[in-house]
C-alpha cells in the first residue's frame, strides 16, 4: 500500500471533532504558510461536515466511526504516517490555535531531537493561564523537564512534531486515556530513548470557545494530570518495534 504522496516527507496530522467551521481555513493556511507537506485530517466521529470540508480543502481524511478522543485520533494518524513512509509528522489543532507559520520552526526542532514541542510560554505570543491550572502545568513541566533532561515549559501543548523513531514509538504506545496524548505519550517516549526539544511559538486565540477558569475544573485537571504522570512514570519501558 504505497499511495503516492505529493510530498512524501512531511505529514501534518490534524485531529478534528466537529470543526467544520474552522478546519477549512486552517488547512488552507497550512498549505499557504506551512512548508511543503501533506495534510491528514483524522475526523474523530464528527457529526457535522468536517470530513467533507476537509476534503474540499485538499486534505486526506481518515474517518473514525465514533469519537475516540485526541489520543485515538493521533494514534490512527501515526499509523497512517508509518504505513505511508512519512519521515516526519506534526500535529496541528484544527481550530486554528496553532499558527501554520510556526510549523517550519517546530519541524526544524527535529534536527536536534526525536520530538519537538511548540511551547506557548517560551517568550512569544500572549497566551495566559491563571490559578491552579497554571500551578498544575508548572509542576508537570518541572517533573517532565527532569525526566527529559531539557527545559520544557509547556508539556501539554498539542503542537508537536515527531521523526521516524518517535512515530514508531508512538504507534506502539500512544494511550487513549485523558491527557494520554500529551503527558503519558511524552514520558513513555522519553523513557524509551527519544529525545525532546522545545521550540518557542505564539498561540493565537481559539476560533470559538474560551479556556475555562473554573477552579473546580482546574482542581480536577490537576488531579487527573497528576494521575496521568504517575502512571506514565511507573509504566515499563517499551522497545520501539522494528517492523
Amino acid at each position, binding site marked *: 500500500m504505497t*499511495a503516492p504522496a505529493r510530498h512524501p516527507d512531511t505529514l501534518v496530522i490534524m485531529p478534528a471533532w466537529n470543526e467544520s467551521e474552522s478546519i477549512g481555513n486552517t488547512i488552507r493556511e497550512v498549505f499557504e504558510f506551512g512548508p511543503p507537506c501533506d495534510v491528514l485530517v483524522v475526523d474523530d466521529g464528527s457529526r457535522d461536515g468536517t470530513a467533507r470540508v476537509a476534503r474540499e480543502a485538499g486534505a486526506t481524511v481518515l474517518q473514525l466511526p465514533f469519537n475516540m478522543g485526541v489520543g*485515538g485520533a493521533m494514534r490512527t494518524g501515526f499509523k497512517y504516517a508509518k504505513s505511508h513512509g512519512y519521515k516526519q509528522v506534526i500535529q496541528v489543532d484544527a481550530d486554528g490555535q496553532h499558527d501554520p507559520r510556526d510549523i517550519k520552526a517546530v519541524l526544524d526542532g527535529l534536527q536536534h531531537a526525536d520530538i519537538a514541542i511548540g511551547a506557548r510560554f517560551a517568550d512569544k505570543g500572549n497566551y495566559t493561564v491563571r490559578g491552579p491550572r497554571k500551578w498544575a502545568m508548572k509542576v508537570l513541566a518541572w517533573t517532565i523537564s527532569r525526566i527529559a533532561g531539557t527545559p520544557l515549559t509547556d508539556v501539554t501543548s498539542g503542537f508537536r512534531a515527531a521523526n521516524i523513531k518517535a512515530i514508531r514509538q508512538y504507534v506502539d504506545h500512544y494511550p487513549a486515556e485523558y491527557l494520554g496524548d500529551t503527558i503519558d505519550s511524552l514520558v513513555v517516549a522519553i523513557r524509551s530513548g527519544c529525545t525532546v526539544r522545545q521550540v518557542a511559538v505564539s498561540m493565537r486565540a481559539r476560533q470559538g470557545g474560551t479556556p475555562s477558569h473554573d477552579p473546580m475544573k482546574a482542581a480536577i485537571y490537576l488531579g487527573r494530570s497528576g494521575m496521568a504522570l504517575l502512571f506514565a512514570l511507573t509504566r515499563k519501558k517499551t522497545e520501539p518495534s522494528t517492523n
Partner: protein
Amino acid sequence: MSLLMGSIVVVAILFFVFEMLRRQKLREKYAVLWIVIGIGTLLLSAFPSLLEEASGLIGIQVPANLLFIMTLILLVGVCLHLSREQSQAEDEVRILCEELALLRADLADIRSQLEVKPGQGSDPGPQNP
C-alpha cells in the same frame, strides 16, 4: 428443608451454566469460575458442618459471617475481572476502528486512482506522484 432448597438452587445454576456453554453463549474462561463456585456451594449445602469447622479454625463465631465474607470477596473479584475484560474489549474495538479508518482511506485512494486512469483530462489532484 433449607438444605434441600440450597442444593436445588445451586444445581439449577450449574445446569444453566452448562446450558449456556453448550449453546456457546458463555466463554469457557468465565464458565470455569462459576462452575467452581457452584461446586463449592454444593459441597457446603451438602455438608454444613464444613462451614462451622472452617469458621472455628479462623476464629469467626457465627459461621454465616464466613459465608458472607467469602461471598463479598468473590463478588468484588468477579467485578474487577469483568472491568478488566471490558477494558480489554474496548481497547480491541478501538484498534479495529483505527484499522477500519486506515483501510477506508486506502480504499478511497485506490478507487479514485482507478477512476482517473481511463478518464480523459479529469485532474486527479492529490494523486499526482
